[in-house]
């Protein structure tokens, strides 16, 4: 341990911060895009019409069975083909993340909506509200309350997932650290630093979330 060179971290601080900014952008886009698309998928899955429900269910099941690495490769390959011109790896990674995380957010949202007892929907419809109004004023407020902790927890998982953009050579926090590790021959310092930073961010988030959840339940 004595020949640890911590000066390397101070020297490469700016480059690492740039990486962390990209990781944050990925989390933001994956979460916002994933929630919107996931909400659409959840409504499709809850539809009475099997032609709508079955494709959505199939999409979610397939996405949840595939490794994120393979999904990243799929979109990296597919998107330039679909739009007919090359596109940066950032764009294809952002799209892959939205498409992948949407499947997970869909299941959280669906569970939240299913959590509201069907009697409430029936009572709303019986009182003369339209389906959309029942959803908007009765089901969603309660569903949101049930799903919020799970969504927040998923954001921490998405943050961990973003490290996988390493495989398409996007310069996120881990990738930038690995570049310095290779360039300066300092893997021990760099990977230890990366692990500690992820640990502090993720652990404090999950602990804060647990604390808040317990306070809310009481």
């Amino acid at each position, binding site marked *: *341990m004595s020949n640890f060179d911590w000066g390397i971290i101070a020297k490469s601080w700016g480059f690492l911060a740039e990486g962390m900014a990209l990781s944050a952008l990925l989390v933001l886009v994956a979460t916002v895009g994933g929630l919107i698309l996931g909400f659409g998928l959840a409504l499709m899955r809850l539809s009475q019409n099997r032609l709508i429900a079955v494709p959505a269910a199939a999409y979610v099941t*397939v996405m949840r*069975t*595939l*490794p*994120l*690495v*393979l999904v990243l*490769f*799929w979109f990296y*390959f*597919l998107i330039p*083909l*679909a739009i*007919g011109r090359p596109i940066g790896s950032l764009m294809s990674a952002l799209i892959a993340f939205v498409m992948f995380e949407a499947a997970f957010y869909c299941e959280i949202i669906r569970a939240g909506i299913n959590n509201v007892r069907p009697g409430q929907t029936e009572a709303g419809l019986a009182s003369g509200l339209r389906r959309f109004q029942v959803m908007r004023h009765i089901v969603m407020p309660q569903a949101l309350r049930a799903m919020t902790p799970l969504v927040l927890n998923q954001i*921490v998982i998405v943050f*961990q*997932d973003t*490290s*996988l953009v*390493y*495989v398409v050579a996007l310069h996120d926090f*881990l990738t930038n650290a*690995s570049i310095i*590790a290779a360039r300066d021959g300092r*893997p*021990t310092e760099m*990977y*230890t630093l*990366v*692990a500690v930073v*992820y*640990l502090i961010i*993720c*652990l404090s988030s*999950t602990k804060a979330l647990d604390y808040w959840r317990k306070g809310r339940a009481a």
Partner: protein
Amino acid sequence: MNYRWNWSILLQEPYTEWLWSGLQLTVAISLASWVVALSIGVVAGVMRSLPGGALRAVAGVYIDVFRNVPPLVQLFLWYFVFPEIVPESVGLWIKRDLPYPEFVTAVVAIGLFAGSRVAEQVRAGIEQVGSHLLPAALATGLRPMQAYRLILVPLGLRAIVGPLTSEFLVTVKMSSLSLTIGILELTAQSRHVENYTFQGFEAFTVATVGYLVIGLCVTGLMRLIDDRVGGAALRKASS
């Protein structure tokens, strides 16, 4: 879209061979990692369910640390950092004499990550059956150790066969991370075929179908175990 389909590429050598060996490696890494995850997970989960003391705290630290560092970072720690920080002789042995070093490293890293998730399930299972059965077991005169060994652990494990299915699937997905340290498993081989032939559709479809088939096998196997000895069997017996 301008794409030249050529599914026959999949039947040409060496591409068939590449994809097949990738599938075999994915299965091998997944199974080996799952064995590690189950062993560590059961031990840590039981420790975590104890009423207090050092063992509970140690398991708590293990679970917190391994669940809150991204698995890819953990893999890099085991691969790049671990041989450097252990005593020199051990580090040299890892670098020179350890057979299949990448494979072993991947299995250790993925197994320990998945183990921390399994441990949470085991703890939940034991707490679920323990709240009713522990007082009853102690009242019949069993010592706490016996109550754990004979009642809480066996029944707790049987209750969580269902939830463990998703942890097994997570382990299979995590096996793809091993491509970053040079293991040519299924995802890596499909990329490999794409790079050589530009037939990405065909190659990635094979990988996708491969993961779906593995997923179906895992789900089927776990459901069978659940029906025979797991939570489903317990519910049947009690109703």
